[in-house]
């Protein structure tokens, strides 16, 4: 059954907002879930974190970054086009409870996927502090949406064009000066950001939940490619996660596994073949 694209636009350079008509998915999706998408009949199955939805319209929105061949295909889609596979919701949802003060950190596509987490936490009565991190202000998005669901929104940019100048290493100091001690920290973003934040919060004793993003194929607990080591045990992100305690993850192993298909998928797009002229 083909799924209709409602919207696909580059929201900031290289990041795309991607809305698909998928009523069955929209009806049951929750914060922290992901979907599996196949861009065309020869396409591979790739997981996308979910960033928003409209149950009455039957649509689901993700933010994705164009990295390899499959996301390049997605990035070429126009509203009205269809894709052959859009399946979900997959994975366990993020646990939403009454934790007190919750820090939601988003970077890259994760600014999108942590938004519904922040919204649900706010609705559940928590004090929500959202931190959006990017290299520069022109890479930030959805700040208006975050203001509506957060008690405070902070921005951190590498070049200081918005909010605090620097990187996530500055977060403890930033929060300290604002007089905030989080009861729970949740991070959605690139692997480096989630790893780094877990390293930063460990000595502070801040419980840190990360939304893992390994390579997947079926996404339904069959193929085993999304395995990772959590507290020394083999876990599968598609059915045991994707949320895990960031302090328990073997990050070095995870990073190596995530890059394992770069030679096939990413590197060819970065090669210009210019050398062949000489």
């Amino acid at each position, binding site marked *: *059954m083909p799924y209709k694209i409602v919207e696909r636009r580059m929201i900031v350079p290289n990041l795309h907002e991607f809305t698909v008509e998928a009523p*069955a*998915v929209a009806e*049951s999706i929750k914060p922290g879930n992901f979907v599996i998408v*196949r*861009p065309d009949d*020869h*396409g*591979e*199955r790739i997981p996308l974190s979910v960033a928003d939805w409209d149950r009455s319209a039957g649509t689901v929105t993700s933010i994705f970054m164009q990295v390899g*061949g*499959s996301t390049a*295909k997605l990035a070429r889609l126009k509203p009205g086009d269809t894709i*052959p*596979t*859009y*399946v*979900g*919701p*997959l994975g366990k949802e993020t646990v939403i409870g009454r934790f007190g003060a919750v820090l939601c950190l988003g970077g890259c596509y994760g600014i999108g996927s942590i938004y519904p987490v922040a919204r649900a936490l706010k609705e559940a009565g928590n004090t929500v502090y959202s931190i959006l991190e990017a290299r520069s202000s022109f890479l930030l998005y959805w700040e208006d949406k975050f203001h509506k669901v957060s008690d405070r929104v902070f921005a951190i940019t590498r070049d200081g064009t918005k909010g605090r100048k620097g990187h996530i290493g500055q977060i403890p100091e930033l929060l300290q000066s604002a007089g905030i001690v989080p009861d729970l920290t949740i991070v959605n973003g690139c692997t480096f950001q989630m790893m780094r934040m877990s390293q930063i919060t460990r000595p502070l004793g801040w419980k840190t939940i990360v939304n893992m993003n390994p390579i997947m*194929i*079926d996404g*339904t*607990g*069959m*193929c*085993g*490619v999304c*395995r*990772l*080591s959590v507290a020394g045990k*083999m876990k*599968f992100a598609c*059915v045991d996660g994707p949320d895990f305690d960031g302090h328990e993850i*073997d990050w*070095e*192993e995870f990073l*190596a*596994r995530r890059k*394992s*298909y770069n030679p*096939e*998928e990413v590197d060819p797009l970065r090669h210009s073949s210019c050398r062949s002229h000489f």
Partner: protein
Amino acid sequence: MSEEKPEKKKLDPKRRSMPKQTPWERVKNFEEVALGYPVETAVEEASRCLQCKKPLCNQGCPVGIDIPGFIKCIVEGDFGAGVKKIKETNALPAICGRVCPQEEQCEKMCVVGKKGESLSIGRLERFVADWEASQGKIEVPDMASKTGKKVAIVGAGPAGITVANDLVILGHDVTVFEALHECGGVLMYGIPEFRLPKRIVNREVEYVKSLGVKIYTDFVVGKTRTVDQLLKEFDAIFVGSGAGLPWFMEIPGENLNGVFSANEYLTRVNLMKGFRFPEYDTPVKRPSRVAVVGGGNVAMDSARTAIRLGADEVHLVYRRSRTELPARIEEVENAEEEGVIFDLLTLPVRLVGDERGWIKEMECLRMELGEPDSSGRRKPIAVEGSNFIVPFDAAVIAIGNSPNPLIPMTTPGLEISKKGGIVTSAETGQTSRPDIWAGGDIVRGAATVISAMGDGRIAAASIHKYLMNRG
């Protein structure tokens, strides 16, 4: 004394061989290895059947095909009648003819086999199914009038397709929900093209659809909708959600890059057509020295796939001896012919990686066989100090899998076994909840296609009885 006794049929002890691609041809392609009987050979082979008054072969068939009945049709040259006979009890003859372990089932019971070589029942089943397909016109069985009862089936694998087939013929309204983007389950993602061409799976699925079965792909029951949500709309549910997470050996290094579960390796190649990368987007590694750990059909499939992907050396690493290999002997022989090296009585104890996190070698122990264990097979015992290291740039772990966790995780009140499977009654396939049935790998863990189909047959009969009794 002129009374003539009817001449007793002379036993023809030699089974007719089936043409195959030569090993040196087939290692370079993914085309089907076994080519099927030509018409004359099929009739000759069928004529070897003794047409026993009390046949034993039927009893060896998990779905109870009338074997002498369909063989007789072949002898008489009425192949259409033969396939119709099979389809009375088996919706998927072209598949079963190819992947059933007949040597352990019908052919094991065959009376001809007591004195000579048993009849090639599987090859003949395949023959009539392929003959029908080549005629371009598929016979549809007689259908019962509509009952108005609605049945949902979880998973379009061998168990689910069998239930769908049986129940739609009995007049029920059947809807199948499939998690993947293609139907067939393990027939699609697990069994390679060279053993079961995917066009044949598609053909059989289309046949079941032509009977009026509705199939929704990309629909994960337990996630998109729960079983309980479906039960608001359907009168009964059959769960055939199949295999789940792969087992690993729990030795160091199994998360290194270049270490694959057989499920992943085969899914990349079969379902996602990775062997045609970059025409298809899903990549699959093409390493030069591959270790496949395990001794079942999935291990053979993985090893033979690695050969076809161009590996220089493929080793099948198995802790017992050749006699104990659980794979079909035919597949073991195919693998040997294709150059798979069998490292028997060998147990991996550690996978060693390079500085970038890729596997570079495997440390193993030599084993010897001791007394028979609970499985009746001689127990492998490690030879102390026999450790040795072999270089490999990939390892495929094919030692089995647990049942899929999604339905057990999301269906309250369903009794689950220690191994994670759904508990069912052997006679009915019914679970601890009266309106839910289950069968295949979700109950058994990793089993065979035909046992899943057998479960489906039993469950379908029980579901039918339940629905009709409810009025």
